[in-house]
């Protein structure tokens, strides 16, 4: 499909808007101001109408200024309600959003009913967005404001990071947190207002929230998150605008939001860091790891310490000790076998023994387990703050002195596992060597 020059320009503009809104919006979300952004967008509608009523013509710049004015008035009322009254923030946001949007709708209906000029206002395109009607002037405005947003985020990364993560600490450093908040919200307001012609007041907040929310599934790092949300926003703007331009009858806002939703759901499912799939795989891997470790420990206790020491063990022996299903026990044994940790004593039997490398692992697993056990018994009050039972090496979490003390304690109680067979072998080989020399 050939794209007209005008369409290309609009595509570029909305994509840039997406990138800028995505990055600015990420900070707004981290600062827990996402809903404030939504309220701001809805509160912009009456301003658009009032500007039109005053000028009696469709002057985009003036109407966007009007939108900015009532939008900012809206969030200032929210901030004042939070500060000076005991109205809770969610209630304040909800009331401001609905009151402003309601009056905006009333005004826009009134304008549409004006017989002489009503149809010229094109207000419906500000409610749900319409990229087709965008002029080159609109796009230039987007470009300037979008670049401004990107530049501000790049320059003030550190400042926005510190107010979003720990605003009290930022204040203790002497940062003007209130001012920075105001600046952040101004950037949000800017993105919202320039996005209005393309996406509309109802759905623009999706462009703020979705890219960052989607990016969060892919990374645990703020820098990466910001870059990703910029890219995501860009892609959403691009695809949404292109689709809405090709499907002429459909408003751009909902299409852009739906493209964003697709991206969000895909990230939710497949995100590398926190996606559902990644977490599920991680959880399964973790369970297998834990299961293997328990299997090795039971095998160790059976083979090296039990009354029937040195005799092989069967899956039934495992089930005596663990409430595993038979299937799970068999599967764990198979996993252990393919990892070279255990081997069947004879092919086709259900009797297994530890391999030499399995013995080493089993010894470590048993030691780790007993150290944690002893630690929890000795320091019950520290359990939830220190203990990471998923970790084999208690040394990473507990100071060495404590580990030594616990080890000594286990040794005294005769519960410190030692590989007797191995040390015997070593003694023999040493004796052998001595004899030779």
């Amino acid at each position, binding site marked *: 499909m050939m794209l007209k020059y005008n369409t290309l320009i609009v595509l570029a503009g909305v994509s840039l808007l997406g990138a800028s809104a995505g990055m600015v919006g990420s900070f707004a979300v981290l600062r827990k101001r996402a809903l404030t952004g939504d309220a701001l967008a809805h509160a912009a509608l009456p301003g658009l109408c009032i500007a039109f009523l005053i000028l009696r013509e469709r002057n985009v710049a003036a109407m966007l200024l009007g939108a900015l004015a009532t939008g900012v008035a809206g969030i200032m009322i929210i901030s004042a309600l939070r500060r000076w009254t005991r109205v809770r923030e969610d209630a304040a946001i909800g009331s401001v959003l609905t009151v402003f949007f309601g009056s905006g709708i009333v005004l826009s209906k009134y304008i549409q009913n004006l017989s002489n000029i009503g149809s010229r206002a094109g207000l419906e395109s500000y409610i749900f967005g319409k990229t087709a009607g965008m002029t080159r002037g609109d796009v230039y405005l987007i470009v300037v404001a979008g670049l401004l947003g990107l530049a501000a985020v790049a320059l003030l990364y*550190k400042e926005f990071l510190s107010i979003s*993560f720990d605003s009290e600490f930022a204040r203790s*450093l002497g940062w003007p947190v209130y001012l920075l908040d105001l600046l952040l919200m101004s950037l949000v307001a800017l993105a919202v207002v320039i996005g209005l012609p393309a996406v509309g007041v109802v759905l623009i907040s999706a462009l703020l929230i979705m890219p960052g929310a989607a990016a969060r599934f892919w990374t645990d*790092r703020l820098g990466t998150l910001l870059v990703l949300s910029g890219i995501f926003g860009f892609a959403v703007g691009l695809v949404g605008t292109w689709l809405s331009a090709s499907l002429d009858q459909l408003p751009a806002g909902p299409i852009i939001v739906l493209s964003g939703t697709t991206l969000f759901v895909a990230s939710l499912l497949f995100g590398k860091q926190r996606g559902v799939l990644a977490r599920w795989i991680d959880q399964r891997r973790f369970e297998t790891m834990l299961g293997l470790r328990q299997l090795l420990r039971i095998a160790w206790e059976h083979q090296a310490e039990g009354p029937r020491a040195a005799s092989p063990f069967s899956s039934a022996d495992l089930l005596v000790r663990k409430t595993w299903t038979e299937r799970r026990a068999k599967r764990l044994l198979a996993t252990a076998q393919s990892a070279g940790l255990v081997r069947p004593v004879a092919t086709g039997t259900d009797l297994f023994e530890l391999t030499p490398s399995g013995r080493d692992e089993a010894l470590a697993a048993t030691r780790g387990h007993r150290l944690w056990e002893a630690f929890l018994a000795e320091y019950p009050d*520290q359990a939830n703050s*220190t*203990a*990471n039972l998923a970790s084999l090496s208690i040394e990473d979490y507990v100071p060495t002195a404590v580990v030594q003390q616990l080890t000594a304690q286990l040794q005294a109680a005769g519960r410190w596992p030692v590989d007797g067979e191995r040390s015997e072998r070593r003694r023999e080989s040493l004796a052998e060597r001595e004899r030779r020399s």
Partner: protein
Amino acid sequence: MTTRSFGHQSFEVMPTVLDIHDVTVAYHRKPVLWDIDLVIERPQLAAVVGPNGAGKSTLIKAVLGLVPMASGRVQVFDQPVARQRKRIGYVPQRESVDWDFPVSVLDVVLMGTYGRLGWIRRPGKAERERARECLAKVGLVSYERQQIGQLSGGQQQRVFLARALAQEADIYFMDEPMAGVDAATERMIFQVLSDLRKAGKSIIAVHHDLRTVPQYFDYVVLLNVRLVAAGPCDQVFTPANLRKTYGGRLALLDTVGEVLEAGPR
């Protein structure tokens, strides 16, 4: 060091570390801190102690200008706090932030260098080196790349401590730096505090465990909305003063009694 002149002579005078004068803080008209006058002349390792709701955290926040004061003024090293920000370090309560936030351990410690960096400038190699040194002091070097939510509570507490160390301040305000940590971590944190003290720094820490006050601190501030007493532990940390601070809470007083019978240090 400030210079004061008397007649023709001028003296180098050690500035007063902390001067809290006539401070009252109220939430919805209910006083949380009432007429606090507290002067700490020399550098100290000081514990702020008192029952729940005594205003311990509020005292620290009022000093730092994080909560509005109904009246009063605070000076640090003879100057208003606003002028001494770079000399002040702060360890907030662990619960005060969202640990799910997408930053690494090193990122958080680097925030300690932000105050000195000023606007716009980003932390560079020198700051990262500094942050790593501070992580080493709290034994968390190997964790620098981890997302902060993956740490245990005690480790998170140490990350906050490392961030404060990175501030390279002269006076540190800490809100329960030893809350919810195990005995070994507590000793480690105390070691860091006592090293700071030996380097001539001051530490004002809210502390929740009466039993360890005389062991860890050399100065104590007893607080219960009003200031009950403040001074060196061996003079101020007495049954009479504790009774004035905690009132008739017997179970607690028994513990305190045991502590005091065991003798100071």
